């Protein structure tokens, strides 16, 4: 009588997400990701500054298409991401529970909150222009209109205290308005971020709009903050000392900087993070009669 052999589990190789592809780190390095009790969960790629450079290149390449898409279209794509997240709740719950050392129920609540947050930001895509822009009264025969425009490539250091909800709360507001993003995942618990990349890859988000790197936040932050082709940086995941260093580096090409501050990711986020990565374009249109002929339009 033969015993059924135990099935060998198929282990997952976590990879980076750059330009819509899943490469290993250029450096070939990985690091061990453990749960709260120090048990090995998986190896994650340890991204290098060259991976950061490649990611910025991919983000820059994707910027034209993504910022040029209609707000409606961007909103639909982001809703689609939420739909895909919904289908993977189990997986994310397990990863968040193991990585953050919280109970399954709490992890499930965090995943639900993350999905809800994603939907909430998706809804803003075609509304933010009304809030941040508008018609300005001017003393002359002109329509004077201000519209918010995405600032460009945004580097994001994901929060260290919330692996999924924190990540969603910093990535979604940057991309919903048309920016493209390079995100350095939570250093200790990068697995939810790397899995989120798989969700993005299967939900109509063009390659390069979101690029996910895992590794040492300080090692990735330095080249991103100094990079001349990065337009803004969100320092949510940097400690005070690192944040100071990165702000000095970021000042060189006048990057917009969002400083780290004490955040409770579960509360209503408001529009701050969306507005932080928008620039205002103001145009003047003549109205009324246009010269001697007296033509009005």
């Amino acid at each position: 009588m033969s015993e059924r052999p135990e099935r060998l589990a198929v282990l997952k190789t976590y990879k980076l997400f750059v330009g819509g592809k899943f490469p290993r780190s250029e450096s070939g390095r990985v690091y061990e990701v453990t749960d709260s009790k120090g048990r090995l969960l998986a190896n994650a790629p340890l991204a290098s500054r060259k991976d950061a450079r490649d990611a910025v290149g991919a983000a820059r390449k994707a910027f034209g298409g993504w910022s040029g898409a209609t707000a409606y279209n961007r909103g639909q794509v982001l809703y689609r991401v939420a739909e895909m997240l919904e289908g993977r709740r189990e997986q994310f719950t397990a990863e968040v529970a193991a990585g953050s050392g919280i109970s399954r129920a709490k992890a499930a609540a965090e995943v639900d909150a993350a999905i809800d947050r994603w939907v909430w930001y998706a809804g803003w895509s075609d509304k933010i222009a009304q809030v941040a822009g508008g018609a300005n009264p001017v003393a002359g025969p002109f329509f004077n209109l201000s519209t918010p425009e995405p600032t460009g490539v945004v580097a994001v250091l994901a929060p260290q205290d919330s692996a999924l909800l924190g990540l969603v709360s910093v990535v979604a507001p940057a991309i919903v308005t048309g920016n493209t993003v390079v995100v350095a995942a939570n250093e200790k618990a990068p697995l939810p971020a790397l899995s989120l990349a798989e969700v993005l890859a299967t939900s109509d988000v063009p390659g390069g709009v979101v690029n996910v790197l895992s590794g040492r936040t300080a090692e990735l932050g330095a080249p991103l903050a100094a990079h001349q082709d990065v337009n803004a940086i969100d320092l949510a995941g940097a400690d005070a000392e690192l944040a100071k260093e990165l702000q000095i580096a970021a000042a060189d090409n006048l990057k917009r900087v969002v400083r780290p501050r004490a955040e409770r990711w579960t509360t209503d986020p408001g529009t701050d993070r969306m507005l932080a990565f928008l620039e205002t374009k103001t145009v003047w249109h003549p109205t009324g009669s246009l010269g001697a002929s007296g033509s009005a339009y």
Partner: protein
Amino acid sequence: MLLCVTSQSPPLTALADVTASDAALRRFLHGLPGVDGVGLEARAASLGTRSVKTTAKAYAIDLAISMIDLTTLEGADTPGKVRSLSAKGMTPDPTDRGTPSVAAICVYPDMAAVAKEALGTSGVRVASVATAFPAGRAALPVKLADTRDAVAAGADEIDMVIDRGAFLSGRYLEVFEEIRAVKEVCGTARLKVIFETGELSTYDNIRRVSWLAMLAGADFVKTSTGKVAVNATPANTLLLMEAVRDFRAATGVQVGVKPAGGIRTTKDAIKYLVMVNETLGDDWLSNEWFRFGASSLLNDLLMQRQKLRTGRYSGPDYVTVD
């Protein structure tokens, strides 16, 4: 007319009889050893794995910049664009005057005069394509008139295309004589012969056409026009390099190499430089004997140069668009 070959250096006379007739030329070209395609590609790939860093990289970047034929070959070219490209060629990075200038500005014949005027005495040369570039589908008198025009407009170098139709249908002597005729009207201008390797189907053909062009008096052999799907690849450029190396061993005549099309990054350019060094050696490591036909490559080289200087990754906002 074919006896003109004897006026070149003595060892070339040894090859004079191979161009005596179409049959002799075919016998010679088909007698060249066949190309080991797998070996060639493996060799080209292995030469692309070198790690070139720090001071060596800085040297390679400056050398690569000095080897560029900065090219604009668009239907939409205007005198203004050619002038701004010329300005860029002379001073690629205005924020760092230590940046070397490029080797030449490569334009269509009708823009050669504009480029010549813009470049003045800067030492940057004017290269003009000719002979019904890029297809080469015109009668010989038209091609010669095209070349004469370019030379008269002040072109220091002529980039001609071969008649691929004639070559592929085996009329080797016709191709040979066409190159000789163009060479003659070039006068003192150096002649680069474009094979359009992407249209020649086999590595054997590329080896044959290299020898054919060199026998006919080409000063440079060039891979492609940049106008077809397959342009310069490491393998077909390596094949050209091997041909010029063997040609010098056989005849004592040195011929330059110019890969063109599809070389866009510093990494690519450095791979080619490694290949030159390993295959041809120091004699070819200057813009007298090796060129890159490129337009966007220069920007990437400049960005890498800025990175080495400042330690910060640069971006397209810090170089010109064209």
